[in-house]
């Protein structure tokens, strides 16, 4: 007799071939779970090839979701339940499973051809020792799906495309989730394809019924809703939140936003999200290359629009010269870098934080820019608004350093109060009286933004060094030094826009410093070790340049400083250089986010040192 147990938190991983629709069912499970009220975090993990050879280990596409009745910050370390649609999906994911984990396998994906494509000499399902630590539920999902949709007269190929929904139906049963949200979603998606809709619904229901009636599972689980702050919520990916943030910034500035971009993983979804926002004052331009994308964005900024370009690390490398021109011309520009594994083409679909130094310093000459890194998928919204504000208020490029993990990951987003976001003042100058192109506001050092077409204010700008004030080309040695220092000081003064740094945990002992997308894992790791009675404080840096004014004082208050990063110690290097503090690195550079236990172990090790 099956019983329903209550669980605090669960990690599920759907794994199958790239063509098996695992991202789709993962997305559906996420949606249903969000509507149910659990806190959650997701981690889509897919191959670089659109369709890597079917059935191979390289072609395995995974989607992990962590959901809980309390606040969670990561997609989870170990998997409690794995859905494996074929042999390759099983063997490549075994290492992620905790002892006692549930595995649902599609036995139809373990034929001789599947085994050979997965480079297996024998069937792992026959290997009792291999599977002994787990609870394995075997189901011939492909065959069962064909049976379920048979009355609808689909081709075998069409029938097989429903098998992911059969698997999803099984998982919904195990975790006591309703089918209705997915049924409604399918109804909308296939509103014009009645036959396909019926087939998908039949497969979903058959999967649930199969799991229920055969009592294949010893237990089912229910994860009660989490306690959220009061408000309205929706699920959001980082890339989409970022796009909505840019549209918001456009309206807050009262200017059009121009997004110049060239397709690149994992940033293309921002372009896809922005392209339909034409009625929001957002225009998109798919350029011929990365360089043209940024140059067109700068051209648009010169014309009084908010120029934004989006890319990943390799694209930033190509845009460097143009970003330097925006520094020199003192025009606003937002550069979005959704970081991925590097160098070179690296690991296009995997995450990394190794473009921090490139964002800070990757240009010829002294070319300071502002750098902001969002903390989580939902935070991309506010980070995008801030990046536009920094760029406009500093007349300077501002980097937005997201990463593949944040960009593709999802989490519940508490819908913002739009009225609470202050306007961004573009400060266009139209008064020719006393105008000089490089005259400055004495406090912010910002130069005026003058849109071509404004009468009687014609002037010339460009990449040659400018004389402060007149903006005329100047080769004067002392002017060059003055301008280099001034451009740096202008960026530094953007500190006025940075709120005080929040300290989580203890005011002394070990300080753990995180930045960007590692916030969740670092915070979970810190909390885990604090529970063991250690004194640990944690700060998270959203602003990497300029750094917050209070940062030096905070660093000085702690005995030791540990900086976990998905690179070889880039922020640690910056902190050491800026503050002469003995910041130590904990580095992981595997294309994968931190696990909570990895961070916790590093903290324990640092304390024991």
């Amino acid at each position: 007799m099956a019983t329903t147990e209550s669980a605090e938190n669960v990690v599920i991983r759907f794994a199958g071939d790239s063509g098996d629709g695992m991202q789709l069912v993962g997305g559906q499970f996420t949606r249903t779970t969000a509507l149910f009220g659990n806190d959650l975090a997701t981690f889509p993990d897919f191959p670089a090839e659109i369709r890597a050879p079917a059935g191979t280990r390289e072609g395995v596409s995974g989607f992990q979701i962590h959901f809980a009745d309390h606040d969670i910050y990561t997609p989870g370390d170990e998997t409690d339940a794995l859905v494996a649609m074929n042999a390759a999906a099983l063997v490549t994911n075994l290492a992620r499973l905790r002892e006692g984990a549930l595995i649902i396998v599609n036995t139809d994906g373990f034929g001789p051809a599947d085994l050979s494509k997965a480079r297996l000499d024998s069937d792992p399902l026959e290997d009792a020792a291999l599977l002994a630590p787990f609870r394995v539920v075997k189901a011939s999902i492909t065959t069962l799906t064909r049976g379920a949709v048979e009355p609808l007269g689909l081709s075998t190929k069409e029938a097989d495309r429903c098998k992911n929904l059969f698997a999803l139906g099984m998982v919904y049963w195990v975790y006591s989730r309703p089918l209705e949200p997915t049924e409604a979603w399918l109804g909308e998606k296939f509103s014009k394809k009645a036959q396909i809709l019926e087939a998908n619904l039949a497969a979903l229901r058959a999967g649930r019924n199969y799991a229920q009636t055969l009592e294949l599972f010893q237990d089912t689980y229910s994860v009660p809703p989490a306690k959220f702050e009061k408000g309205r919520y929706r699920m959001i990916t980082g890339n989409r939140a970022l796009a909505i943030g840019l549209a918001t910034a456009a309206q807050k500035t009262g200017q059009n936003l121009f997004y110049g971009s060239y397709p690149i993983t994992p940033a293309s979804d921002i372009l896809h999200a922005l392209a339909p926002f034409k009625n929001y004052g957002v225009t998109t331009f798919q350029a011929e290359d990365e360089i043209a994308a940024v140059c067109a964005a700068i051209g648009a900024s010169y014309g009084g629009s908010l120029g934004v370009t989006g890319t990943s690390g390799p694209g930033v490398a190509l845009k460097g010269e143009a970003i330097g021109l925006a520094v020199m011309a003192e025009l606003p520009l937002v550069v979005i870098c959704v970081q991925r594994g590097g160098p070179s083409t690296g690991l296009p679909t995997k995450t990394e934080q190794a473009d921090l130094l490139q964002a800070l310093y990757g240009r010829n000459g002294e070319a300071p820019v502002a750098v902001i890194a969002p903390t989580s998928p939902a935070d991309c919204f506010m980070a995008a608004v801030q990046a536009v504000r920094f760029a406009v208020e500093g007349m300077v490029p501002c980097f937005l350093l997201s990463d593949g993990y944040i960009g593709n990951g999802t989490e519940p987003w508490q819908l913002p109060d739009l009225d609470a976001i202050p306007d961004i003042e573009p400060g266009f100058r139209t008064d020719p009286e006393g105008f000089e192109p490089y005259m400055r506001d004495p406090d912010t050092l910002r130069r005026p933004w003058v849109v071509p077409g404004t009468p009687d204010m014609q002037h010339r700008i460009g990449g040659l060094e400018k004389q402060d004030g007149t903006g005329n080309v100047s080769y004067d040695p002392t002017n060059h030094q003055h301008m280099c220092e001034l451009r740096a000081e202008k960026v530094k003064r953007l500190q006025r826009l940075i709120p005080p740094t929040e300290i989580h945990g203890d005011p002394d002992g070990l300080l753990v410093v995180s930045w960007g997308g590692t916030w969740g894992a670092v915070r979970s790791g810190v909390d885990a070790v604090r529970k063991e009675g250690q004194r640990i404080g944690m700060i998270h840096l959203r602003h990497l340049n300029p750094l917050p004014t209070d940062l030096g004082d905070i660093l000085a208050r702690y005995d030791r400083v540990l900086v976990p990063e998905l690179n070889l110690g880039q922020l640690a290097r910056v902190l050491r250089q800026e503050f002469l503090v003995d910041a130590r690195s904990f580095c992981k550079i595997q294309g994968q986010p931190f696990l909570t236990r990895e961070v916790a172990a590093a903290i324990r090790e640092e304390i024991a040192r």
Partner: protein
Amino acid sequence: MSAQYKKKDFMSDQLVRWCPGCGDYAILSQVQTALAELGRPPHEVAVISGIGCSSRFPYYMNTYGFHTLHGRAPAFATGLKLARPELSVWVITGDGDALSIGGNHLIHLLRRNVDLNVLLFNNRIYGLTKGQYSPTSEVGKKTKSSPMGSLDAPFNPLEVALGAGATYVARSVDIFTKHLKSQLVDAEAHRGTSFVEIYQNCNIFNDGAFTAFTEKAVRDDRVLYMEPGKPLVWGATTRYGLAIQGLDFKAIEITDEEDPRVLRHDPSNKILAHFLARLDGSDGMPVPVGLFYRQARPTYDSAFADQVAEARQKLGNGDLASLIDAGDTWEV
């Protein structure tokens, strides 16, 4: 002809710093004259350049100006035009800037047909970096970087432009002042990317590159001034006309300007334009100047603006609150 603006309204207060005798001076003068004639107020004109001798151009114009990056002026100008479609935008570039480092941007600008004027100053040499062979230098050119002669075959800028789908392709010469000015006025009138190659003498590093046909004494014998609808004829004393032989041209001696064997110029004929673009003054053939090709095709910037207007008409002005509060939301 507008009486409102004079050439000096387009002249900036900056000291012009090209080498004395450089062909750029003559071009600057004709651009300023043409703009005055066009009657556009200086503040409605933006001049965008890349890097090179010619790209210093914006500093000398009393218009809005942006001296950008090597080869990238077409991309900056595209962004500006999309943001401010009401401006008259001019791209100033050279043979190295447009055809070497910036080749990609040039061809994509031309295929998109953004409403800009591109003036390519072709002096067949790198001037600002002091005399290396360029992508339009003849094979075997001896320069500092090619002491035994350059190895690469040159581009023909007009064929590149036609191949890339340009909707307006023309050529003039720095010292053909009247011709140049009227070509510029005509280029501005065209909606779309107007591509004008201007032969420009670099008297320091490639002096006399075009004298074989531009010298006063030989000019009328070697240059074919093309005019839409008129016969393609040239020659000071002996008159010649362009006629068809097989799949190519031949030059025929004529006595009658209206000789029926002679082709009439038709700038809407792209095949003719390709043939004309290949004439380089060799084999008794002339060097054509004037308009090679013109095609009416919707511009990228107008189509871009139309999509925005269509979206606003269909969907109304975007309401952020409903954009945010969309999909599956839930209340806590």
